[in-house]
Structure formats: C-alpha cells, structure tokens
C-alpha cells in the first residue's frame, strides 16, 4: 500500500510535494506534470488525486531527490 502526504498548498507561488513509500523506500519530490495540470485547471483537488492514488513524486525527480537527501541519512 502506498502512503502519500501533501506537504503544502498548491496554487501560484506554492509547490506541492508528494511523498511515496514503496517497498521500503521513501521518495519525495514535486508532483508530476499531469497532476499539477489537473490541479491548476481545477479539474481535481489534491485530495481527490490522493484518493485516486495518482499523487506521486515525478519520476524524473526521484533520482535527483535521492541525491539531495542522501546527506541527511546517516550511513551505517
């Protein structure tokens, strides 16, 4: 089961960050372009997209964010 959390409002000037935990790996990043378009066009709210299981981090951002957050995790 996926878990996602919206961290901030989505409107002009704000960024919506999605968090997904899949198979023991947590990923964080901006929502994908299709979801962003749906919200900016007022077709779906972030909550509706969340319930539909669509609110996931943009795939391209995943590897980048892994690098950005790598330093925050203590190596064992």
């Amino acid at each position, binding site marked *: 089961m996926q878990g996602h959390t919206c961290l901030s409002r989505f409107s002009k000037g704000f960024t919506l960050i999605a968090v997904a935990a899949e198979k023991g790996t947590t990923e964080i990043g901006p929502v994908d*372009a*299709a979801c962003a*378009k*749906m919200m900016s066009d007022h*077709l779906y709210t972030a909550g509706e997209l969340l319930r539909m*299981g*669509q609110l996931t981090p943009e795939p391209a951002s995943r590897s980048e964010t892994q690098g950005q957050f790598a330093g925050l995790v203590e190596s064992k």
Partner: protein
Amino acid sequence: MKCLWVAPIVEGHGEVDSVPVLLHRIGSELFTNVHIQSCRPIFQPRGRLINPNDNSLSKAIQFAISRLDAVPSDASRLVLLLIEADDDFPCRLGPQLLNRCREFRPDQPIACVLANPEFETWFVAAAASLSALLTEIDDADIPIAPEVTRNKKKWILDRSRTGNYAPAIDQRKLASKMDLKLCRSRSPSFDKLCRELERAIRVEGR
C-alpha cells in the same frame, strides 16, 4: 519494435494494479514486435462514469490525455476506458460511452471496452490455466460460455486456493498467470480489448 502507451480509466481498485500487467502481456505475448506500456490507471466509480449528467468521464479523459502528453512523442497513444458491463448490454453502453468520450475530445484516440459482465469473467475464461491460484478444476466445471452469467467473483472465491478473493490483491496475480490466448478464444469482450489495442497500434503507428 512498435510502442503503444495506454492511459486506462478503470472502475475498480483491483484493475488499477492488474490492467497494466494485462496490457503489457498482451503486447508481448499476443502481438508481434509490440511493446505496450501503461500509465497508472485512473480510478473512478462506475456509477459516475456512466452517468451522462456527471462530469467524471470528461475529467478522467482530460487527465488521461495529460498523462499521455508526457510519453515519448514517437510512441502510439490510446485512452482506454475499461469498465464492467454488469447488467447493461455492452452493445448499447459501449457505443454510448464512446460517443460521449469523442464529444469531449474528438482529436484523441479513445477506445471503450466493457468486460462482460465482470472483469473476473476473463479469469474464468482462462481458468484452465490458473491451477496455481485456483483449486483443481475439471473441464466440466468451467462454464462453456463464461460471459452469459454473472457472479464470477464468487466463482473465483469458491475455487481460490487461499479461500479468499480480494480484487485489489488477487487480480494482479491472476492477470499475470492467465493464458491470454485461451482467454481471447473464450471471451468476446477480452477479444474486443485485444482488437482495440491492435487498431491503436495500426492507426496510430502510421
């Protein structure tokens, strides 16, 4: 190799995980030199999708098209509305839904397929190949015409090796194991799905 990207719109949580598996397998096992890739299916309740006074269908189509806008430009594309026929006649509901879809976006390749009467009918049609997940089934036990009667969820439940049937968990397993050729030969609605995919590859691939 031809590549087809499909953005499915489905009505069940089980289909969200199982339809991408099914589409990928159809491309690699039933077609030649075709790779079918699926966007994450868009889930909407059936009652809202078929209600002409509800805008869920048009919104879902817009979302599906947005999903396809992100795929490589050299790939073929298809918006696939895949729901269960239930008590409706597929020959009536299918064209009605397709007409509504085309009214919203006549410029986009859209197909409408109704699993008749349920998604599980396809597993029943291919039951002879699902002995790993279903108890031993002899030929007499498998319906000759699986699309004629309803309640195929119970048929699967009664024969599940685990004693349970949860669509969100089990549909993906069944979809990954079923014999697609057998299913296509015994289920006209599954054959319709295959034909729509073939058409999308042929038309879009020009």
